[in-house]
C-alpha cells in the first residue's frame, strides 16, 4: 500500500507532497516524540496531534513514510517549509487519531 493509496482510501488531505509512491510498512501513533523515536520504525506512517517541527526531525531520522496530523491540527508555515525541504509526506484529517488508525487498519488489511 502506497501513501497515495491511503490518501484516496481514507480521504486524507495532502498538505505536503514528497514521494507519495512510498510504501507504508505499518502504522505508529503517539505524541511523545521521545517515545515515538524509540519505538517507531522505518516506513511506518505516524499518526499524531503534534505539529511542531520536531515531528519532522523524528520522521526524517526514522525514515517514516508519512506523517498524518489528526483532528485538523494545523501546522504553521515553518513546518510546511521544513517538510518540503526534508521531503516528508504530510497528510491531515479531521478524524481523531483513534479513528484514523481504524481507517488505516482497514486500508492496510
Amino acid at each position, binding site marked *: 500500500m502506497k501513501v497515495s493509496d491511503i490518501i484516496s482510501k481514507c480521504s486524507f488531505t495532502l498538505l505536503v507532497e514528497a514521494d507519495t509512491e512510498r510504501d507504508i510498512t505499518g502504522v505508529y501513533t503517539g505524541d511523545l516524540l521521545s517515545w515515538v523515536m*524509540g519505538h517507531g520504525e522505518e516506513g511506518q506512517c505516524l499518526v499524531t496531534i503534534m505539529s511542531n517541527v520536531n515531528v519532522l526531525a523524528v520522521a526524517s*531520522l526514522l525514515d517514516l513514510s508519512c506523517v498524518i496530523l489528526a483532528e485538523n491540527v494545523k501546522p504553521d508555515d515553518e513546518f510546511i517549509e521544513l517538510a518540503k525541504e526534508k521531503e516528508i509526506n504530510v497528510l491531515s484529517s479531521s478524524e481523531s487519531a483513534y479513528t484514523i488508525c481504524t481507517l488505516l487498519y482497514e486500508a492496510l488489511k
Partner: protein
Amino acid sequence: MDNSTPLTYSFTVHGDDFSSAGEASVQVKKILRSIGFDADTIRRVSIAMYEAEINMVIHAGGGVADLYVYPDRIVIVLTDKGPGIADIGLAMSEGYSTAPDNIRSLGFGAGMGLPNIKRYSDNLDIDSKLGEGTKLTITVIPQR
C-alpha cells in the same frame, strides 16, 4: 581505515534554537549511510544521538557533538557547559525529568531520553560535574 585514526566529524548544537535540534543527527545519519553501515546500526545511532542532542538543547544551552567512525564501532561524544547532572542514577531512570512544561507541550520531557540512549547503544558513559557541564560518550557496535 586504521583503528587508531577514526574518521572524525564535529557538529555545533545550538542551544537557542529548539526547532533546529536534530540537525546534527540528520547529518550523522547521512554520513553513516554513505559509508555503508546497515540500517539497524544507523537507526540505533540516530535514536541515541537525537536524544542526546535534544538534551543539550533543553537542559544545557547547546554544545558540541563529535562523531568518530572506527572500522568496528561508532562513537559519539557530546559535550556541553550546562548545569551538569546532580544524580546520574536518578536521571537514568525512566520517567524522571526536570524539563519545563513548555518543553513537554512540544512532545519532549517524558524522561525517556537517557533510557532510550542506553537501550539503543552498546555503551553509554556519562561524565558530569555540577556547574561545569556534561559529557556523554555513546558507543554503537555494528552487528553485521
